[in-house]
């Protein structure tokens, strides 16, 4: 049952070291306004609960088809077919599957429960300079839950960070900022039309929010996913560098991180019944990444390449 104030998440990952300083607990929010073709967590995109089926584990035993109350599943000779139309995500197919090929993603969780998990690693935060990062998915899509969670974490003196695509209303950021120690802000492209081709949305709102954000005091780390054929060229990086330079009056940008494209999420597309559009793409070469990095360094930004 959805209680007032609960959030929808799909994972809490302790001992995260790639999402802000130190050892962190990463809360994955479910739901995102963008549909980036390279997204490595496609299960984060829709806000509602989803069924994932891993065909490599399925033996076509038919147990799920037999148990499904809405007859969403049929087994044909060498295929398991799932029609989500009537599916109410009751989870009986997951429970019955002997091979754990079916997973349900998305769960309701209370602030109290998240804080209890975060608190377990308090000593790790203290000793490593870590804390909690809200990511996902897009934390600003659940503004009430995000705000209250950050408030609760600050009460414990825990360092807080958010990973955001920036696509939201500015007033939501204004609510969150008082409780944030660090903002990890995605910038994918400066050209609004190019941006829209592979993320589904124009970047105008994103860049406007970034300008506002740079006018505040919270430290910001800019994160750029480096996607082949989309923004892996000097010009794209140059434009980003120029944009940042134009607005970084308060010098709040600590660093720029380049996140090279990778295919680690590809199996999840299949499990969700989605098609993966970047099949032919490869992780950018180290030499290219070094050139892109140099471009941003030339604009005066400490830049690092964050290999997974």
């Amino acid at each position, binding site marked *: 049952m959805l209680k007032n104030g609960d959030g929808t998440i*799909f*994972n*809490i*990952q*302790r*001992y995260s070291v790639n999402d802000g300083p130190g*050892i962190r*607990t990463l809360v994955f929010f479910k739901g995102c306004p963008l549909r980036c073709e390279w997204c490595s967590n496609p299960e984060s995109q829709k806000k509602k609960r989803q069924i994932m089926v891993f065909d490599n584990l399925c033996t076509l*035993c038919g*147990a799920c088809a037999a148990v499904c109350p809405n007859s969403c599943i049929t087994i044909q000779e060498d295929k398991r077919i799932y029609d989500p139309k009537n599916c109410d995500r009751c989870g009986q197919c997951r429970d*019955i*599957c*002997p*091979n*754990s090929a079916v*997973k349900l*993603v998305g*769960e309701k969780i209370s602030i109290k429960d998240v804080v209890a*998990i975060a608190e*377990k*690693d308090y000593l*790790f935060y203290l000793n490593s300079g870590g804390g909690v990062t809200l990511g996902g998915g897009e934390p600003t899509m659940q503004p009430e839950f995000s705000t209250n969670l950050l408030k609760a974490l600050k009460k414990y003196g825990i360092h807080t960070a958010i990973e955001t695509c920036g696509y939201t209303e500015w007033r939501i950021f204004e609510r969150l900022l008082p409780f944030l120690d660090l903002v990890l802000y995605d910038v994918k492209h400066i050209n609004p039309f190019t941006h829209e081709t592979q993320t589904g949305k124009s970047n105008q709102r994103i860049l406007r929010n970034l300008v506002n954000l740079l006018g505040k005091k919270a430290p910001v780390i800019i994160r750029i996913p480096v996607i082949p054929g989309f923004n892996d060229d000097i010009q794209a990086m140059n434009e980003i560098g120029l944009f940042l330079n134009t607005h970084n009056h308060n010098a709040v940008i600590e660093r720029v991180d380049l996140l090279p494209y990778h295919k680690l999420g590809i199996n999840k597309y299949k499990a969700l019944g989605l098609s993966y559009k970047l099949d032919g793409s490869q992780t950018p070469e180290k030499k290219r990444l070094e050139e892109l990095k140099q471009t941003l360094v030339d604009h005066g930004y400490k830049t690092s390449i964050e290999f997974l």
Partner: protein
Amino acid sequence: MDSAAKNENQSALPSRINRMKNDFLKIKPSVSIDRAKATTEVYKENPNLPVKIVRAKAFHRACETIPIHIGADELIVSNPSGKQRAGVFCPEISWRWLETELDTIHKRIQDPYVIDEEDKKTLKEEIFPFWRGKSIDEKIYAQLEDLGVLPLTFESGIIDAELKATNGAGEYAPGYCNILIKKGFNGIKKEAKKQLKRFDIARPDDIESIYFLKSVVIACDAMVLLGKRYARLAKNMAAKEANPRRRSELEKITAVCARIPGEPPETFHEALQMVWFGQVAHYLEENAPSYSPGRIDQYFYPYYERDLANSVITEEEARELLYCFMLKFNEIPWLLNEFASMYYAGYMAFQNICVGGQKPEGGDATNALSYMVLDCAKNLQLYQPSIAARIHNKSSQQFLNKIGEVVKTGIGFPANHFDDTTIKMLLSYGVDPADARDFCLVGCVEPGISGKLYQWSAVCLTNFPIAVEFALTNGVQLVSGNKLGLETSDPKAFETFEAFEAAVKKQLQNIIRVSAITTIITQQVHRDHLPKPIVSSVVDGCVESGKDVMMGGAKYNSGPGIIIAGTADYANSMAAVKKLVYEDKSVTMAQLCEALTNNFEGFEMINKLCKEAPKYGNDDDYVDDFARDVIDFISYEIKSFQGLYTPLALGTLPVSSHTPQGLVVGALPSGRKAALPLGGRHQPRPGNRFQRADGHHQVAGQDQPGSLHRRCAAQHEAGP
């Protein structure tokens, strides 16, 4: 580590060390039978002398006759076989395994050894026939057979008792710091002769002491003789050496070996050579694991400091000598039979050296040598010596950073031990506070006190989950179908979880009882047939009291330990039975037993439920409490049995034994299928960390066993 980093480390080595390491890596491990020949001769010649004297004479003969060798670049010399990477075969301990493996040992999968064809002939014609019916291995086997405990031990392998039946004892820290470098073997001999005067051959109670002290005198003479042989060899080589630089090195070695190991060392070089002769002496006495030199940064430091102050040596020269010393540890493999090499894989001899920690009087003990040892280990990238670092509340950040630097290279060293835990543990057994602060590590993780504490880490290695299996089968081992456990009742008759748990505990008690019997028999056979004059010469209390270590001569005694694997499998299995059978009632006991008997084949749904039951290591008390409980239970149970000198002790350090131990355990309620490896020490089972989507992971895996570890560590080792 990537190859670039490797190259960087290679180039960080001085050129001499780089050459020595590269040469070393090309050597195929072999079996050396020279000591075996000497031992066999002496036993043949002296069939009627007391065993203490015969063994000392055999040791002496080995020191007289083994081939000796000085490598082209060596500064620290000697080894127990005259060649590098040669395992020392000890037929009086066990020979049957080598007879079986004689034509296969060179091609076995785990840790192969080559044997010379000529040596094979000697073994077959002279050595094996003589020892038939006389070895330690055969004596222990016969006694256990007579007592009716073979089925659970040697026959099924559920309790593996080969360790001390087929090897020497080892597993202790020799008193290099408090005895050998203070007195030298001549000084120890002098002390033994002095003590001899206290005893009267006309008094029956004194006879064993007299034999013992005589054995120490003979063994000390033997080591002095070996040193002199090396001095002569170095002198001859120097005379023929064309390169003036190497000639002067050989002359230096000549001078060092003329004094060492008879006289106490005066320089850093002599001190290193002294300790190395000490290691060689131990391996000539018995092929065994874990002869651990302990806190070398502490006892070498005065020599280092004085040599630097007197300009006898430069820091670079000292570093080169230390490299040479550390390289030596790789030269001696612990020779094992094929099966045991799965338990202790990788030619490991477990010779542990320790850096950092506190001084005996308190306060940080870290010094320049602590850092030098860590640097050498980092650059050498070899598997021996094992390195332990002691950390305490006042360890400097610089020291911690240095440790991190070494760990980061991926060599798996140093093992980091926190002083508080170990010192408390030793204090709880009544060790003097100053001795407790002076602890070192033995083998992998066992706390020791150099030259003061005598203990065996283990005689028996077994596992926890087999008790769960026995309780669910009324005592039948699933993989063999044999009745090896107790008849605790038909499992379907357990009306409550508590009744089931009580049956598991009964099965555990029985396994411990059989382990205790095996341990005590093994200790007795070692005491009566395998006295240890070299070990006894470097343990406080032995020479003074006229008692061999095997007669309880050491200042402190402890254990032996009983090592138990599979803590995680036990906890997971107990939690699954509790939850599925007694709480959720989603599976009946009959169904569960049937599924286990069939290794879950055809019972996929039950297997799924078992796998989804709570798993140890996820910060979930429901299951973790079973681990705490069983560790508490078993440690008190084990302590209730008395070894020859002290109560037995629990050890949860299976090394790699959880893999072969897995072979004897069938499918478990945890969802694990038959014969798969068990979990190692206290860590969660692989895979369980990532089984659920909501968090458990490295952090849980790391912090979870904190209290648990402390408790079983405290009950594990050490103490009078």
